[in-house]
């Protein structure tokens, strides 16, 4: 167990380093460097600026410096959008908004998704199951921005009962959370249904039925617990899903979070912010996956994750 945890932590560390290297080299492929699109600078000023940000050194030295800075949690300063403000400060300012929205959506997706799956499994083969299956299939197929904009048009513009921008009141949370959680919710529902049906056919469920327990107790007490294990493993990808979905939803609803800021920094080509945010969000996702994997091992010790599952 301890060996497994250490192994996973080392692996997560390597993933973060790998992402940092990819980010670094990609950003260096951009011709002309970050100052080119500004007003034409005289060669001296350009050289001075490059020296200031350490861009005149060889690439590998730059990479080494960058990684060392990264260990000190120094992500550099913004070039354009908020000139000379440290990227980490900006991220820390913006992230709580996104994080709150994401956490609410995540909890909502799970709280709705699991009952949907249970209902579908409980009433399998009936019209309830069919309706839920159609709903979840459509839900996972519609891109997030379609959901967000359709909600915006219907409830924000045509009916104008919900605020269309910002995150100031309770009402303004409804649409972003709905848009962000629809596809994860449907996915969790499908996952719960199929794993529930797997579990129902197992022996201990037959034993529980044979003891004379009611179907409800069997389903919700005995079957539900074990059928939640696949849902638990989905939590890692779910976090990534909600974070990246946040880019779109925050842009559509003009929410001042990290996602919208990231999108803006891409169109403004503010490279330190793009790099910093990518590494930050990627590390966050890797960290969440790490925790979920360890939890998974605790919940279900039968799983031997160190061996590759086929």
């Amino acid at each position, binding site marked *: 167990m301890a060996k497994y945890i250490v192994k996973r932590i080392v692996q997560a560390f390597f993933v973060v380093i*790998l992402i940092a290297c*990819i980010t670094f080299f990609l950003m260096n492929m951009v011709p002309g460097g970050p100052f080119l699109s500004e007003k034409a600078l005289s060669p001296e000023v350009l050289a001075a600026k490059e020296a200031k940000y350490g861009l005149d050194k060889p690439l590998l030295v730059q990479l080494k410096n960058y990684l060392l800075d990264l260990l000190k949690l120094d992500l550099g300063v913004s070039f354009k959008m908020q000139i000379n403000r440290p990227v980490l400060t900006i991220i820390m300012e913006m992230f709580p908004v996104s994080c709150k929205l994401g956490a609410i959506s995540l909890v909502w997706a799970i709280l709705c998704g699991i009952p949907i799956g249970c209902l579908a499994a409980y009433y399998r083969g009936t019209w309830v199951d069919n309706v839920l299956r159609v709903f979840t299939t459509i839900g996972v*197929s519609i*891109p997030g921005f*379609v959901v967000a904009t359709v909600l915006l048009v219907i409830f924000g513009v045509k009916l104008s009962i919900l605020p269309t921008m910002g995150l100031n009141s309770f009402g303004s949370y409804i649409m972003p959370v709905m848009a962000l959680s629809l596809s994860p919710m449907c996915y969790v529902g499908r996952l719960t249904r199929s794993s529930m049906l797997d579990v129902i056919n197992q022996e201990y469920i037959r034993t529980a039925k044979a003891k004379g327990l009611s179907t409800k107790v069997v389903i919700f007490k005995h079957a539900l617990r074990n059928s939640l294990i696949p849902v638990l493993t989905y939590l890692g990808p779910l976090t990534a899903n909600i974070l990246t979905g946040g880019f779109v939803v925050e842009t559509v609803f003009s929410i001042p979070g990290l996602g919208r800021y990231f999108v803006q920094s891409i169109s403004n080509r503010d490279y330190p912010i793009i790099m910093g945010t*990518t590494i930050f969000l990627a590390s966050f996702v890797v960290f969440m996956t790490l925790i979920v994997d360890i939890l998974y091992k605790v919940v279900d010790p039968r799983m031997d994750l160190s061996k*590759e599952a*086929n």
Partner: protein
Amino acid sequence: MKKSKWSVIFPSLQPNIEKLFTDDSFNPATENEKENFIETKESVTYWQEAWRRFKANKVAMISLIIIAIIVIFAFIGPLFSPYDYSTQIRGSENLPPSWEHPFGTDGLGRDLLVRTMYGTRVSLIIGVVASLIVLVIGSIYGSISGYCGGKVDNVMMRIVELIYSIPDVLVVLLLTTALKEPLQSMFNSSSSDFIKGLATLGPSLFSIFIAFGLLYWVSNARIIRGQVIMLKQQEYVTAAKALGAKGSHIIKKHLLPNCVGQLIVTTCLQIPSAIFLESFLSFLGNGVSAPMTSLGSLASDALGGIYSYTYRLVIPSVLLSLLILTLNLVGDGLRDALDPKLKK
């Protein structure tokens, strides 16, 4: 003769020899009897069987028909339209839907019906090409890893694990951002007609393909590896080895053809996810370059006029969702048809 205990309980188990064999039993079979032994049913191949199962699946069949209609709309539709996706018609900007322009025109006076057709075409091409890239890289990598086993497998799977844990969408977004300018300058400086032709699609498309080639093949590789590990213990592989076949030959001729069901299903399910990803990137402004368009960038363009021209958003969104939904359903149907063991 003393009757056994069991024949008392099950009297029918006691064979009645007099009844079983009469004198006729030892005569040669008549022509009529011989004919009865010949199978009247034609033998059914794997593909016929799979197609029969697929046809029985109504949802998948309807989805397949819808996809066919969308493909015709995207590839043949523009031939019947007098307009072009990039021609800007002066004086007919922002027209509402009418007989002349069934989907109206956009802010630059371009016919939206033709643009939707081209957008659908681009989305479909991206989906298919990206899945083919994933198919090729994933199946080669996975089969080598599974066939070699041991240390090679171990190292190769560590690499897969590493790539698997990278949050893909973030890196794709980064790739499309960073590769835009280098690719653009490559297109501009090149004189070859082929690259010029590619350039109309724009650099972002290539970044998407590069991203798929770098990141998305891993799940496919895992599936193929599992399949190959299972298959390589079969006798025909041992026989091929005993006859002196090389590893590459065994993989090409024996292992991959036997994974073909799996390969088709995973490739089919990859198409909608590629279309999904492209629409996401286009929506964030990192998609195909203007004047070329895709369903995602059409929706993104419509966002500016969402209050007065809602239909411009609705049309590409509905088409996109329909496309992804039907492709997913066909993929599911194919999985049930080609691999009945997996069906739940």
